[in-house]
């Protein structure tokens, strides 16, 4: 039935067969979900955060459940770019050849972000980079870059300088004016933006009088944050010209359509993958169903189509 529907959307030079991608850190590099999801049906696989050298991540406990959401302080644990290339990229090339791979890039410093990209430039199967300047779970770097216009622009420009591939910058919601940051990042050469990363939050164990997370604070995700995410996508879409990958609590096809209407060109599914490992496909089907019901023939026509 999707024959008469054009589901493709574009992020810079990159065309996605449909707008549904995976949210970094919630889908590993796809292998763990291959039992549940036909990876060839995804718009793209956005990998977990990859850093120049291996990162151990934070102490446990690393997650806590909250009302309609969860906190995490994983801290970008990853085996580093070399192991990523050898294991994850190789696996993806073999098992999901037709699906674009967007590598989420982590760093403690501008140099580290650049180092990861420079290393990956040699890899033909990487389609785009998503530079994470918004992780609330690492001390140095991480969110710090995402909360200041100048720092955000600096990282962006440095990454831009070393790649011609589609460059997406992932923004932090823990700021006063996300649209201002978005403008600086656009000016610095980003091809697209993804938002939102998690909201900085905390959960407390009243019985033990301790934070639930070993790190104390963590990133809030899930349906609880959807209203904040929709608002930010909408605000940013008013102010920039580059495409947006919207995310934050997306659980159903209708949620995804709301993000498209607010101005996102694509949507990422994160926490929902933990609740329903088939969430990405269910959501893609939901978008298709919505389009048929509303006589929409091009998903791209929904982008920013909200009447305010």
């Amino acid at each position, binding site marked *: 039935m999707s024959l008469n529907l054009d589901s493709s959307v574009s992020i810079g030079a990159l065309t996605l067969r449909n707008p549904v991608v995976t949210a970094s850190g919630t889908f590993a590099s796809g292998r763990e979900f291959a039992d549940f999801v036909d990876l060839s049906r995804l718009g793209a696989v956005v990998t977990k955060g990859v850093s120049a050298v291996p990162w151990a*991540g934070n102490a446990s406990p690393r997650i806590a459940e909250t009302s309609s959401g969860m906190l995490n302080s994983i801290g970008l644990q990853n085996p580093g770019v070399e192991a990523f290339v050898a294991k994850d990229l190789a696996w993806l090339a073999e098992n999901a050849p037709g699906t674009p791979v967007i590598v989420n890039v982590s760093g403690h410093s501008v140099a580290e972000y650049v180092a990861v990209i420079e290393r990956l430039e040699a890899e033909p199967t990487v389609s785009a980079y998503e530079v994470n300047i918004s992780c609330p779970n690492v001390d140095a770097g991480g969110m710090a870059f995402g909360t200041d216009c100048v720092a955000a622009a600096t990282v962006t420009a440095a990454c831009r300088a070393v790649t011609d591939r589609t460059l997406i910058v992932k923004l932090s919601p823990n700021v006063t004016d996300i649209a201002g940051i978005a403008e600086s990042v656009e000016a610095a050469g980003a091809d697209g933006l993804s938002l939102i990363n998690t909201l900085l939050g905390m959960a407390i164990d009243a019985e033990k009088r301790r934070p639930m997370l070993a790190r104390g604070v963590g990133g809030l995700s899930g349906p609880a944050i959807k209203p904040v995410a929709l608002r930010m996508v909408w605000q940013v879409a008013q102010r920039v010209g580059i495409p947006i990958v919207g995310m934050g609590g997306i659980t159903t096809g209708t949620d995804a359509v709301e993000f498209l209407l607010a101005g996102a060109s694509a949507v990422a599914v994160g926490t929902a993958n933990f609740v329903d490992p088939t969430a990405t496909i269910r959501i893609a089907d939901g978008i298709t169903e919505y389009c048929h019901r509303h006589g929409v023939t091009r998903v791209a026509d929904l982008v920013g189509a909200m009447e305010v």
Partner: protein
Amino acid sequence: MTHAADKPAIERVTVIANDPVAAGVGLIVLSAPRCASLVRPGQFVHLRVATGADIILRRPFSIHRAYADRIEILYQILGTGTLRLAEKPVGDDTMDLVGPLGQGWRTPDTLSHALLVAGGLGAAPLGMLAERLAERGIAVTVAQGAPTAERLVARDLFERVARRVELATDDGSVGEQGFVTGPVSRLLAEESFDVVYACGPEPMQRAVASLVSTADAQCQVSLERLMACGIGACLSCVVSTIDGQKRACVDGPVFNAEEVVWNASETPPKH
């Protein structure tokens, strides 16, 4: 994605029975044909207890027993999710599971005598193991401990299939008074075992592991961690090992005791 026969899948379940077995502990029997036919002892399911609820994450539970088209879960009421599980009426078909998940207990072909050490709810993942080992004609000895006699959950199952069962309770209401480590050290002295399978509070597993390390038996432990995805993607369930960080959900929950770098902070706030 083709579901290779032994791969985990999402399966809708129906409640066949759900009854209290001790204070704050219940046994729920679920119709789950696919999972029941695939599960190996020590594996678990990631159960979606509630939909449209304020709690969104699944809850991991060991499979206590599996037969025909059914699985049994022995659960302790700890918080919101297990409380809702306890309230599920017979016939309820609103839950689904992801499973079977994880690496279960390893049972070498050479195995001839096994010691199962169960502390409290640690009996849960050992029930099916005891039954399957007995079916294979392997000698099973059980050391079980709990706060009180009533809390010796699955005791009947162990008595049924085990060659010998030694009990310990904190209040001495049955068996010797004190921790299960008492009977364990005695048993290790009296008999010889190929493998010791331990599950219970992590300090107890750690104590058992060190007792076994002096005997010449292999020791496997089943570890609990907070789990979001249950399938290896989120890294919320890390276990420190001598080979670095592993994931309890896919590399475990059963680990060889020698590889575990015991780290109390990794254990869930509850249990």
